[in-house]
């Protein structure tokens, strides 16, 4: 392991030393840690200012909770309103170990399912804490007035999600993310009204300001006027989501990007496990080369929908003309214990395998059926409509097909990214004072996230972790007063402005969109559902030449001093073009298959992911070394004290 020193202390960085995982039995770690953390007294809290970047579940919950405690908070979002953050699009639900169904759930079982679902590549202590606080999240959201689904007796309803054999998922029809976000957004706006949060909408963070090795502020661009603005504070929280849009086509919103995280990486925050990307099995298939995004059909549909392909290859008959005995319900056949409810990586890989083998359906042959006929016959159309009405409606809007009558056609698509900035148990990155929450960090989902766990993690980080851990930084660090007049702010702002002006000065011939599409196809082909060393090496070369193409031939019109959406987009794509190389490099370095990272060279005889626990039971955290320099790989060894490492089996 290389020995790179910490900027402040001069000591070599050893991630295992600085991960701050508490000692003691797993069930007591968080309670013990909370007691050990230093506190900021109520009257002192108002002396501190926290900058929260992002207003999704992690950002809105963190900003409102910290303001409730008495801190001064800035909340920055690139949207026109905090409510637009992409958490809003989460459909299926949020897990919690309530055991309301009396079906054997517990904190330990949720912990175990999440560790196993992540293919044993996440931190035990973090995941256990997540399972512990999951129950308080539901309580808080209910108190906020989130209209969760209810039984007739008035109690909360649950459904089942992939990778679990209990019903622990709370939901609000197919719009759970929307309702949870509107709850957090309400709390945030309450604090705005009380003057404890200052909201900065239509602002994009373009750089992090680090002073004496500590994160002290940000530079952002006002997306309406084009002005560069700076904010100073005592800590910065990145709640900026994932990087799925590196692939161009994904289920992410068009504006989702890696820029804030990438800027932090270039200022010294380590980027962990970028190759852990989640391909969601149930998305509406690609239809044309003009397509701008892919739409997810919630995993909850697999509760009632059965996945199948024709039993004979290249069978082009319409689905209703294929009799039962000529259909292959391949998930039920291969995984009898979990059936259609296997985890996402397993379901995606199996869909790809069937299509590669020639059993795919539809015009392109890159799709499988998700069929509700049996559930409709059993429960009636009305019951199915109640559960999934808005999803069926959305499917019909996009495809012009009625899923009550013909099976849905689905295919996997990039959906979520488990990798992200490295954080310690306190959610602090390798830059002191820079915290990373939600999808933007790497910590809880290992190599594959289970369904209904993203909402849980975003809210856990914001409502129940950061309010405790940030106090330790504020109480124990020397934080001399800093304003935006400090030279570091000016320097960082000039760098950010120069980058924007450089984009405008290329005056080339290619649109940003066309370059982004090419990057996306490269990543999808060589770093998607299946990867191999030759392909990844090719992808790295290709990405380098695309980056060159961008900086010599991109065409961005207009000025910097105005609302210029194409310029915003160009900046994000420029960062994806750098980040994409790190993603592929990480995938090339991890010589094993685990979860969503499937290297073709490493598989079991029956085609399942084959882990290499001896050599790769670690977090791969990358350190930036300057432009066109190879990044340094640091390893945090994952220690499993509680759970025995096994080959995942859902059979």
């Amino acid at each position: 392991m290389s020995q790179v020193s910490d900027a402040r202390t001069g000591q070599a960085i050893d991630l295992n030393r600085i991960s701050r995982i508490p000692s003691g039995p797993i069930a007591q770690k968080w309670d013990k840690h909370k007691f050990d953390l230093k506190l900021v007294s109520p009257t002192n809290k108002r002396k501190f200012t926290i900058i929260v970047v992002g207003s999704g579940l992690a950002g809105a919950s963190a900003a409102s909770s910290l303001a409730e405690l008495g801190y001064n908070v800035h909340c920055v979002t690139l949207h026109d309103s905090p409510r637009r953050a992409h958490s809003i699009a989460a459909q299926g639900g949020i897990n919690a170990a309530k055991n309301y169904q009396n079906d054997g759930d517990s904190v330990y079982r949720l912990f175990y399912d999440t560790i196993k679902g992540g293919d044993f590549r996440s931190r035990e202590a973090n995941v256990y804490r997540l399972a512990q606080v999951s129950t308080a999240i539901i309580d808080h959201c209910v108190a906020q007035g989130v209209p969760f689904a209810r039984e007739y007796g008035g109690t909360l309803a649950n459904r089942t999600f992939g990778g679990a054999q209990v019903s622990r998922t709370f939901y609000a029809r197919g719009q759970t993310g929307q309702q949870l976000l509107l709850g957090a957004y309400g709390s945030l706006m309450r604090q705005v009204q009380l003057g404890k949060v200052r909201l900065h909408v239509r602002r994009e963070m373009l750089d992090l300001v680090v002073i004496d090795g500590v994160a002290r502020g940000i530079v952002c661009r006002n997306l309406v006027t084009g002005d560069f603005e700076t904010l100073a504070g005592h800590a910065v929280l990145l709640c900026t989501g994932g990087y799925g849009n590196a692939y161009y086509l994904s289920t992410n919103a068009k504006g989702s990007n890696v820029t804030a995280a990438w800027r932090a990486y270039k200022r010294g925050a380590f980027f962990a496990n970028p190759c852990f990307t989640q391909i969601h099995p149930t998305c509406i298939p690609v239809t044309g080369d003009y397509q701008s995004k892919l739409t997810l059909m919630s995993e909850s549909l697999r509760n009632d929908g059965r996945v199948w392909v024709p039993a004979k290859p290249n069978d082009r008959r319409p689905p209703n003309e294929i009799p039962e005995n000529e259909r292959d319900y391949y998930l039920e056949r291969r995984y009898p214990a979990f059936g259609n409810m296997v985890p996402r990586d397993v379901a995606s890989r199996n869909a790809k395998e069937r299509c590669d083998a020639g059993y795919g359906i539809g015009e392109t042959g890159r799709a499988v059926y998700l069929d509700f006929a049996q559930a409709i016959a059993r429960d009636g159309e009305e019951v199915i409509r109640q559960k999934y009405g808005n999803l069926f409606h959305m499917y019909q809007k996009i495809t012009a097909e009625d899923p009550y009558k013909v099976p849905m056609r689905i295919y996997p698509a990039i959906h979520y990214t488990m990798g992200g900035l490295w954080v310690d148990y306190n959610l602090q990155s390798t830059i002191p004072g820079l915290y990373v929450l939600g999808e933007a960090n790497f910590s809880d989902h290992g190599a594959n996230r289970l369904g209904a766990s993203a909402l849980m993690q975003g809210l856990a980080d914001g409502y129940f972790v950061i309010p405790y851990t940030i106090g330790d930084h504020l109480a124990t660090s020397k934080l001399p007063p800093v304003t935006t007049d400090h030279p570091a702010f000016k320097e960082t702002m000039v760098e950010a402005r120069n980058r924007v002006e450089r984009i405008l000065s290329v005056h080339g011939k290619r649109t940003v969109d066309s370059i982004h599409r090419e990057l996306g196809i490269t990543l999808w082909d060589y770093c998607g559902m299946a990867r191999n060393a030759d392909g990844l090496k090719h992808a790295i070369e290709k990405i380098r030449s695309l980056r060159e193409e961008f900086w010599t031939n991109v065409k961005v019109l207009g000025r910097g001093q105005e609302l210029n959406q194409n310029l915003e987009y160009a900046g994000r794509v420029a960062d994806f073009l750098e980040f994409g190389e790190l993603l592929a490099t990480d995938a090339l370095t991890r010589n094993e298959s685990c979860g969503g990272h499937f290297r073709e060279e490493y598989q079991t005889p029956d085609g399942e992911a084959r882990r290499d626990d001896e050599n790769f039971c670690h977090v791969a955290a990358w350190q930036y070394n300057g432009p066109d320099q190879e990044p340094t790989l640091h390893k945090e060894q994952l220690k499993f004290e509680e759970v025995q490492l096994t080959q995942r089996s859902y059979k």
Partner: protein
Amino acid sequence: MSGKLNLTLKIWRQPSPEARGEFKTYTLNGISTEMSFLEMLDILNSQLIERGEEPVAFDNDCREGICGACGVMINGQPHGPDRGTTTCQLHMRRFKNNDTIVIEPWRARAFPVLRDLVVDRSAFDRIIAAGGYVSVNVGNAPDGNVIPVPKTKADAALDAAACIGCGACVAACKNASASLFTGARISQFALLPQGQPERAKRVQQMVAQMDAEGFGACTFTTECEAACPAEISVANITRMNREYLRALFTATP
């Protein structure tokens, strides 16, 4: 299945909030009927950039009809001709070859134009800030099942809470009233036990803010319901009015 369309687009172009805007006409050929409306605009923008003309600015994000960022007037109808549909979920199969499509931003005093089709909807945030929440701090909550909520009430609250905050209701209304938006949020909490402690104060403050933002009054022509992509019912406006009346008698000053 899929066909190709040749279209004439008349689009509102306005370089800045202060500038005088105007309609500009563009022709666009070979548009697939399988495309979404915004993908059609993407193609137009790519062609404009290649020709050296500045692309049309429009807000959009999730492109699955839930974030509420997108929304334009299409031939005089907010989000276009389909019921219960956002602009991003409208597909070109809804149009015919050689159609002329007129595209404008939301028109309302409370939603000033920032550029082209982009408007400032922060007035909605300020209405929510005035009281569109339950004032509960993290850490205070009892067990989720301590407060039973009848299924019918929870369902009705969710029907109201489904609002995506896009602003189509305001754009559809001849008075540019925000009553459907505001009534939906008030209804969500009026229907739930959690909303009861602040019930009277909430409706008074949110209605006052709605008026302060310069939205018009509701004269109940129900265009808003017809335009709403989340199919929010005007029953929420009548509930808001009842709540307001009720608050006059029950609110403590």
